[in-house]
């Protein structure tokens, strides 16, 4: 799948001028509220007609204002999962799910009813009315309804925003299964770093109606100039690692990537299993020599790649670890004392990592770091 968007649209005093292309399985449109994320997905879905621009999926032009093309929303085959479930209150869950299939010829139906019901775990709800479902159940039915319309592309506009943490934890695994098991590419709108790092393959970072960065998640997340947009309190890097082995005696699991090895409390994952590890900048300590007689196990060797803006007491330092990136938040005093500058070899000591758990239990309460378990090392 390839999605190309190049649009310009004015909404009152707000100017949306966005241009990006993506081929990712799950592309996150990420940015603060008011950055223009929802307007952008509304343009892709055909709910909003841009003043100027072009939208194309796999080369099929949906909007092109220069040639007057505007495919109406019901002919776009784009599934849309809104913040609120928007189920039809007068129809049962089953008839909600089947709503889109009557507008398709049988050979266009690519999703089987039984598979979707199974994927989303909504088999017990089929004869119920939407008014009697919980928030999480409603959102699962809404996802199923969009899937059963056999869309070419699935848009999700903060589908978890209206849910509490327990309900978020209930839905996230289904979205992951969807991403990994269905062939439908997803565009996912979110302002939560945790959701984006957990789910996305590609990220499109929006700010004040403009695209400021596009690329794979680890790259975009490690860029110092973008930190304020991602919320500086949450600054952190994402490492894509694999389980290298377990030490049953000490109850530790070793994770490995090009950046090096991390030892974390024993994980219930098979060796070779991929997982994303998010390391917050404030949990990283830098040193010039390998420390001795220190309790921390996790020591990664690298070089200073970049030092962020030096204002206030602290600054963020980007450290390159054999091609991968880590962020460390240290004081300016330390930067001067250690004489940190680009190219200088350093050791990064990691205090805590957040590990994405793919097999979350249902109904388990979760913090705003939805989808990540904090692990102190």
């Amino acid at each position, binding site marked *: 799948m390839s999605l190309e968007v190049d649009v310009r649209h004015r909404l009152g005093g707000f100017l949306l001028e966005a241009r990006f292309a993506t081929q990712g399985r799950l592309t996150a449109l990420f940015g603060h509220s008011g950055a223009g994320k929802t307007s952008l997905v509304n343009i892709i*879905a*055909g*709910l909003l007609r841009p003043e100027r621009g072009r939208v194309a999926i796999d080369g099929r032009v949906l909007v092109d204002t220069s040639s007057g093309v505007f495919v*109406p*929303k*019901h*002919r*776009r*085959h*784009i*599934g*849309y999962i*809104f913040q*609120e479930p*928007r*189920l*039809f*209150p*007068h129809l049962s869950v089953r008839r909600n799910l089947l*709503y*889109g299939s009557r*507008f*398709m010829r049988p050979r266009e139906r690519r999703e089987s009813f039984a598979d979707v019901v199974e994927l989303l775990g909504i088999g017990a709800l089929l004869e119920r*009315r*939407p*008014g*009697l479902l919980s928030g999480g159940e409603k959102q699962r039915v809404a996802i199923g*309804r*969009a899937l059963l*319309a056999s869309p070419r592309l699935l848009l999700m506009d903060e589908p978890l925003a209206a849910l509490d943490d327990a309900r978020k934890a209930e839905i996230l695994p289904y979205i992951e299964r969807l991403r990994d098991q269905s062939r439908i590419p997803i565009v996912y709108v979110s302002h939560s770093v945790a959701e984006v790092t957990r789910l996305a393959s590609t990220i499109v970072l929006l700010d004040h109606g403009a695209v400021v960065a596009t690329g794979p998640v680890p790259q975009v997340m490690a860029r110092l100039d973008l930190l304020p947009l991602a919320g500086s309190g949450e600054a952190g890097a994402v490492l894509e690692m694999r389980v290298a082995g377990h030490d049953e005696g000490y109850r530790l699991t070793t994770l490995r990537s090009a950046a090096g090895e991390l030892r974390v409390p024993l994980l219930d994952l098979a060796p070779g299993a991929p997982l994303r590890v998010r390391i917050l900048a404030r949990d990283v300590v830098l040193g010039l020599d390998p420390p001795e007689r220190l309790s921390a196990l996790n020591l990664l060797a690298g070089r200073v790649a970049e030092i962020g803006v030096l204002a206030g007491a602290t600054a963020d330092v980007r450290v390159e670890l054999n091609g991968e990136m880590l962020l460390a938040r240290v004081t300016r005093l330390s930067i001067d004392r250690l004489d940190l500058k680009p190219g200088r070899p350093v050791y990064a000591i990691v205090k805590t990592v957040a590990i994405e758990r793919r097999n979350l239990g249902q109904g388990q309460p979760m913090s705003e770091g939805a989808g990540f378990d904090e692990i102190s090392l």
Partner: protein
Amino acid sequence: MSWLPLLDFTSAELVAIRLSLEVAAWAVATSLPVGVLTALALARGRFWGRELLDVTVHLPLVLPPVVTGFVLLLLFGRNGPLGRPLLEATGFVFAFRWTGAALASAVMAFPLMVRAIRLSVEAVDRRLEEAAGTLGAGPLWVFLTVTLPLILPGIITGAILAFARSLGEFGATITFVSNIPGETQTLPLAIYTFTQVPGGDAGALRLTLVAVAISTAALLLSEFVGRRVARRVGGL
């Protein structure tokens, strides 16, 4: 038993009751589609003259009914600007016919019907219609499968209100189509006629009880059906 004469209807009275029900039923059945379209236009339309349409629809509510009846007579009389072409083209006549009584009832009840439907149209969550669109439903399908079911409570309420209002229509009817027994003499007109002749009290009382019974039944039905449909539409 002493109250038995109350149920001892004369054939003229039965004719008036039947005529009333028929006139009201026709008035509602024929004006309902127009009422739904008008309510949609007023609730959602963005067109020139929307306010004018709004005022016109509501005029019968505030004008003296006799005035409405006279206007209908002017327009739909055999020589009226609408009545004559209609007669020449189709042979259809409103003036001094039961069809005219139905027209007068429909016009008088129209504002009530449109108001009830319009309220329910304005209460529809348009985001549901957007969702239906993204699922592949074109505008007509969205209307038939989402909008229409959701405004059904308003349509039912509007229809029953209009039916009850039609049963009570007097002024416009007597002005437009006169008081012809068996043709245009509906229940209220029959009661009025009874009160104008000596010894008509018993007949007037019998018909009054019938009017009360029919109106009460209509309101109860509207309440019952309205609640059931509202539950359904509310997703329960």
